[in-house]
């Protein structure tokens, strides 16, 4: 096998196939094979630091999958600092946030007026007013844009750098907001792109701060309504339990309330076109004690200081390290790896790019026993990527339906914990057959992705070759090999 091999045609990959066969046949050969030049390493790198290999990335990773992986981190970081490529017909969801807030406000006002009009006409009429369904066009339209962009971004390297797409998903899930909550729905896409994507390989504290200031989060966890006189502790609790410290970190119910008091006044003022607004009048000006630290009245700055403190807490480093290791390496990551990642996190004050470099450079990332099963979203994005990205509206609809039925609806995980990524959650017998439904449906309208053949086991490849041509594309996507990452 030479690096110049053109990957578009499967039969030009005998070298890689020979390596896999040798590795399978002899454990000694496996030990001697440099792990990062095998097809397995390329599959692992492209499927984990992104969603799936493309003909181009499969070739690019051939020299050294590790070098390729490290390059992805730099490229993803660079891409995160550039605007996303969103087609103009979808771009409304990504309007500047204050504009989006104003648009949403105008929409809700108009809806209110129309409802009032209906009530009035119903009262003046002897007949029953026709019951119109609630008009949800604005929120639906914003979510449609977000969903379409997300599926395009995760499956097409020309739209989005693949690792950046993966990291954006990771953080969105960590700081989950959900379109199942009506008032959060129009902001979900903006949050994904502007709070998560742009900080995806930056500093962790910036992610927490961006999330805390965004209307999607302010609304989703009810922070927007909390005030000195009417405290709501929902966001404060999840900020410590889920976003930063983790449940066993030793904070108390008193800490939850104190943090909620610190954050009073963090809200928005859509009527003035302000997507974030610190309402000084609603702020609790008294002294607070959070994790042994005293906070005296300093308005919004109090909350920022508290968030910084939480973001830099050792328990947070541990928690983020564990979640990254679980997502990218193994369902049960080696504690030594988690410790190593946490050390980098602490040393660099939460620099995600550095933590990801440690992760890709660790032997654990490349160990064959550290298997991972694709989640339904991994599977759906990788299947789209295998056909060269989203081709039409039908691809989007079918993928969204598949994700909902699989129990991982896009942007609609209802609870703030986010979905899990482990096989114990997603390896459910009937669910596996539903992946096959989706694979065969997509496969029926795409040419066979022969560039994936080298990544299939010999057995799978031979079985697929025996089948009718019209089934083959789907069977590649439905194969057990394609379920792993």
């Amino acid at each position, binding site marked *: 096998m030479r690096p110049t091999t053109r990957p578009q045609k499967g039969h030009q990959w005998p070298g890689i196939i020979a390596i896999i066969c040798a590795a399978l046949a002899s454990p000694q050969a496996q030990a001697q094979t440099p792990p990062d030049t095998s097809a397995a390493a390329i599959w692992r790198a492209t499927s984990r630091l992104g969603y799936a290999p493309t003909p181009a990335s499969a070739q690019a990773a051939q020299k050294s999958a590790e070098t390729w992986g490290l390059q992805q981190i730099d490229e993803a970081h660079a891409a995160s600092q550039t605007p996303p490529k969103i087609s103009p017909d979808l771009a409304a969801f990504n309007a500047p946030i204050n504009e989006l807030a104003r648009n949403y406000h105008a929409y809700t006002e108009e809806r209110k007026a129309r409802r009032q009009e209906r009530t009035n006409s119903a009262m003046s009429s002897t007949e029953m007013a026709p019951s119109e369904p609630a008009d949800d066009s604005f929120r639906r339209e914003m979510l449609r844009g977000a969903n379409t962009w997300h599926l395009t971004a995760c499956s097409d390297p020309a739209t989005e750098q693949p690792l950046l797409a993966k990291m954006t998903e990771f953080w969105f899930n960590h700081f989950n907001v959900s379109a199942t909550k009506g008032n959060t729905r129009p902001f979900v896409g903006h949050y994904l792109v502007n709070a998560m994507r742009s900080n995806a390989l930056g500093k962790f504290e910036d992610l927490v701060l961006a999330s805390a200031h965004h209307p999607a989060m302010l609304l989703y966890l009810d922070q927007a309504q909390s005030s000195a006189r009417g405290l709501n502790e929902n966001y404060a609790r999840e900020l410590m339990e889920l976003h930063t410290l983790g449940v066993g970190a030793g904070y108390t119910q008193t800490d939850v309330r104190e943090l909620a008091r610190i954050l009073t006044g963090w809200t928005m003022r859509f009527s003035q076109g302000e997507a974030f607004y610190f309402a000084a009048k609603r702020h609790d000006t008294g002294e607070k004690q959070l994790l042994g630290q005293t906070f005296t009245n300093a308005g919004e700055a109090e909350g920022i200081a508290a968030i910084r403190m939480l973001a830099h807490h050792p328990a947070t480093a541990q928690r983020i390290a564990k979640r990254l290791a679980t997502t990218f390496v193994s369902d049960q990551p080696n504690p030594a790896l988690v410790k190593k990642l946490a050390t980098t996190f602490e040393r660099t004050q939460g620099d995600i790019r550095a933590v990801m470099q440690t992760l890709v450079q660790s032997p654990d990332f490349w160990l064959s026993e550290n298997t991972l099963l694709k989640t339904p979203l991994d599977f759906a994005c990788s299947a789209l990527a295998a056909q060269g990205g989203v081709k039409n509206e039908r691809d989007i609809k079918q993928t969204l339906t598949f994700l909902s039925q699989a129990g991982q609806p896009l942007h609609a995980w209802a*609870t703030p914990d986010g979905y899990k990524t482990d096989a114990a959650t997603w390896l*459910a017998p009937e669910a596996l057959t*539903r992946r*096959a439904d989706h694979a065969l449906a997509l496969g029926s309208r795409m040419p066979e992705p022969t560039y994936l053949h080298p990544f299939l086991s010999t057995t799978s490849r031979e079985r697929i070759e025996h089948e009718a041509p019209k089934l083959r594309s789907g069977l590649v996507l439905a194969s*057990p090999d394609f379920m792993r990452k």
Partner: protein
Amino acid sequence: MHTPYFSRRLFLNTLGTGIALATSSRVWAQPGPAGSKAKNQGRLVVVFLRGAYDGLSAFIPYADPYYHQLRPNIAIATPDGTTNTALKLDATFGMHPAMAPLLPLWQQGCLSFIPAAGLPQPNRSHFDAQYQMEIAHAGKTNGVPGWLNKLAGTHKTTAIGVGEANPNILSGPAKVKLIPRGQAAERTGVLADPNARQALMDLYAGNDALGAAFHQGANSRMQSAQELATEKTESNKRRSMAAQQEHKDDTPMSAQAFATEMKAANNGATDPIGLQLDAHHLSTLMHNDPQLRLGFLSAGGWDTHANQGNITGTLANNLGNLARGIAQLRQEFNAPDDTIVVMSEFGRTTAENGTKGTDHGFGNAIWLIGNPINGGKWHGQWTDLTPGNLNDNRDLPVHHDYRSVLAQVLRHTFGLTDTALANLMPGAQWDKRLNNLIRSSSI
């Protein structure tokens, strides 16, 4: 169907209570009356309300003045006989009017609740508390099977779950059946095509976890989708026959008139949706396969931190959907030893918060439905909402460990011995105060 059963039960009830009180205080249960054999014929469905539902809005201590004081905006009004107030159950509790579909069950004596139950220690994290309740193994944080899975394993039976990919309560070494929510469960999909099916079975012929799962899943799905599709056809037939029956004296109807008529015969309802449909799927499959003795359903959207409403609003809608789902389940899951448990990870604060909602609390009501349940009354200890009675000055206390409630049910439905209960839920204790929960004639 259960009337004769009912009266026999009432008679024996008195006797059973006497026996329970007479026995000594071992850590776990007392042995049954001499010569009696623990039963092991029941079936159990657990309905988990994820997000901590507000039990004080479901079962309302309307007679307690503190209840109304603590909840100026969200309290449900004292019963006045209309549907704008709580539906009166007894002198202490009323039921949310949105739960009216369950009132007949209370009146028939097969619905009960334990108003202040929960985890032994306060745990205000949804996810941690749910996990604890699903594994029922105090002190463990990972690697422990769910208790329904464990029970399926020890009893050589199969558990079935609807909706969630693989909930903790069902996960573990025993094989379980998991079907999706909604109409997707009725579809065989690509497996209906023999060529595609064979190709997939061959592709997954490998002797590994994925291969085994795929084969198990394909067989399970073909069977369940077929059963559910058949049931759907038959229930449509039943409905159209009912419609025709009503119209037999009239001239033949047009297709449209016939459709209207069908809808009318079904009391205006179309095909069941949401939790009702899932409940129907669950009970159909459990009915067809006697091996399926354990069922699991879940419902979300209970984390009402803001604007939860009172007789109408978010929570009322949710309770209404739940009540219809449970009523549907009970209609089809009503053999003599069938039991439904409705539970949630913790309760919510007794006082409303500053945003007309409620925050994370502690004690909460667990509901029980079924013929073995000594219903039409509530069980266990209840202390009113007087400030001194509250946990942390804000929550209902837990008077009964949730495991003690489950133990009563499991002893009855699955005949679990002391040892079996101790293995299933390590560290839990038998709670004699709940000995009247199961009708003695059922023991």
